[in-house]
């Protein structure tokens, strides 16, 4: 991808389409039992990760929780490698060993895919620590859900980041629910962003259905961090259209609530903005969507014909030197 200033909005719209089509296809393949374990879809939240990566350089660090397919794709991991991971294949982004919740891509600075709620927030602080230690001007973007902010690990991590003035953006993807628990029932604060205040970390609220707002706000924060390292907290308000995971019917929320958010769809919004400004025709949009669908369909074929990890390599990835103790 190109550096941030020139990164094209049409390109980012394509990314959002790719994420959506990927997740739809993953859902279908899960139902066909090609994918096992837990599988959490990102549909509805696309503008958050797209806006965030559009605001940073490719060598900045990103890390997230288990709803991670989109973050891997946004970081340039191919749909092939992502789908193959879901299929548990050798060609997957974690060699078929991680699965849906544990996507990694070292080369593209995507540091996971972490399935224990909030356990990766201290890791993110470690990434940021290393940046400062080496006197680099990178930043770390740490994504997590609204459910993560009540874990001890989260609080300890925020304090450490503030204390050591580390270059990190904490991005809370507030989709109003942690599984079946609404934020109102999980958190004593009126608004999540106020968590930051307790650690003297500046906080912002951003509309996560609006790609441009996410990108611009994070770009502004990141440029200030590059000048002088410090943590910042962003509460991004978004919504997941699907259940928590493939096995959740989401009966704890109303159809009307879901419909309200779908009308505010992040892809439709960016498309409308670009069309209104004369930068995208309907034909062009259809073309982008067609391409996204084709890429994803090809990824299923790729995953299907990819080899399984070999049984005799079972012990190769337990210790770094590849030997059995």
């Amino acid at each position, binding site marked *: 991808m190109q550096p941030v200033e020139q990164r094209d909005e049409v390109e980012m719209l394509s990314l959002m389409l790719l994420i959506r089509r990927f997740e739809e296809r993953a859902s279908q393949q899960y139902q066909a039992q090609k994918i096992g*374990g837990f599988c959490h879809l990102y549909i509805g939240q696309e503008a958050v990760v797209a806006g965030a990566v559009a605001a940073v350089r490719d060598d900045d660090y990103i890390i997230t929780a288990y709803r991670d397919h989109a973050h891997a794709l946004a970081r340039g991991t191919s749909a092939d490698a992502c789908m193959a991971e879901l299929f548990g294949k050798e060609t997957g982004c974690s060699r078929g*060993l991680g699965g849906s919740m544990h996507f990694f891509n070292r080369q593209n600075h995507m540091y996971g895919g972490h399935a224990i709620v909030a356990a990766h927030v201290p890791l993110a602080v470690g990434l940021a620590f290393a940046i400062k230690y080496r006197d680099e001007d990178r930043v770390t973007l740490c994504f997590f859900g609204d*459910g993560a902010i009540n874990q001890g690990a989260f609080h300890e991590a925020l304090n450490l980041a503030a204390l050591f003035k580390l270059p990190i953006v904490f991005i809370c993807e507030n989709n109003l629910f942690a599984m079946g628990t609404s934020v109102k029932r999980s958190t004593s604060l009126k608004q999540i962003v106020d968590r930051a205040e307790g650690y003297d970390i500046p906080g912002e609220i951003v509309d996560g259905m609006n790609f441009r707002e996410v990108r611009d706000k994070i770009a502004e924060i990141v440029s200030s961090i590059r000048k002088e390292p410090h943590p910042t907290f962003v509460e991004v308000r978004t919504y997941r259209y699907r259940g928590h995971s493939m096995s959740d019917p989401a009966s704890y929320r109303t159809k009307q609530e879901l419909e309200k958010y779908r009308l505010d769809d992040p892809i439709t919004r960016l498309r409308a903005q670009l069309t209104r400004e004369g930068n995208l025709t309907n034909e062009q949009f259809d073309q982008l969507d067609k391409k996204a669908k084709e890429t994803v369909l090809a990824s299923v074929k790729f995953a299907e014909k990819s080899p399984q990890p070999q*049984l005799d390599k079972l012990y190769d990835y337990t210790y770094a030197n590849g030997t*059995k103790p």
Partner: protein
Amino acid sequence: MREITYRQALNEALAEELERDPNVFLMGEEVAEYNGAYKVSQGLLDRFGPRRIIDTPISENGFAGLGVGAAMVGLRPIIEFMTFSFSLVAFDQVVNNAPNMFTMSGGQFNIPITFRGPNGPAHQLGATHSHATEPLYANAPGLKVCTPATPRDAKGLLKTAVRDNNPVLVLEAELLYSSKGMVEPPDEELLIPLGQAEVKREGSDVSIICYSQTVPLALATAQKLEDEDISAEIVDLRSIKPLDEKAIFDSVAKTHRVVIVEQDCPFCGVGAEVCYRIQQNIFDELDAPIIRVSQEDVPMPYNERLEKAVLPNADKVIAAVKKVCYA
């Protein structure tokens, strides 16, 4: 007797204990309004109300500790971990506070708490979500650990755990929630003591010692071994700690050959302790070295084929049995 699922059996145990003792409450993630991530607490919120069936934020260390504190002043908390893999976030409370309090306070504060939830590898959940935690907890002095494999044992052990005056972990079997079995009717009190194994199948050639998810595996394997004229006795430990030495020794004295089928990882696993006790106490009864079948010593891979290779299975158990029987 009637046939119910493992899930229903646990649900009945919870309901009966909540009914019996007003100091008992159930707390955990999604236990109330969602009726439990695995629906074990189905209907309990409706029946007992939000004072006693309590949803928490994702704060395992916090609510496990809350339970220990409440137990210090006489409440009898049942703390649900959505899975025991997440109990690792609360390790400090479960291992450092709950079991040490009684000793440290010179016997002033016992901790009558139950920690429960699914434990052990399920299906393709990957390394972070597949922990078999029984050896971790059984290693801590002051904790009791049970691992029911049938609906009847699940109900009887959970009820006993709630009434115990010490911290007890009820490690449920994630893959067995929907399995069925015969259980006494609800009007008959069912309590199964901790530390009592059960012979789930009589046999004469080899003792297969197992617990939790490896019990159905051992039973199915025993059926196959029958075809090869090997008669396997299946000893379900039911409790890891206290451990029923007598039941183990009785079976070994009868068959003289032992295979331990455990769901945990091999290093310092449950089978290591069982092995030690057998050779220490009834060495002369053994006609062959004991073999342990456990997981491989690797973080759990997501890939289905590799996961199968990591877990105990019928082929591995049969090979081990043949080896100890020199067959």
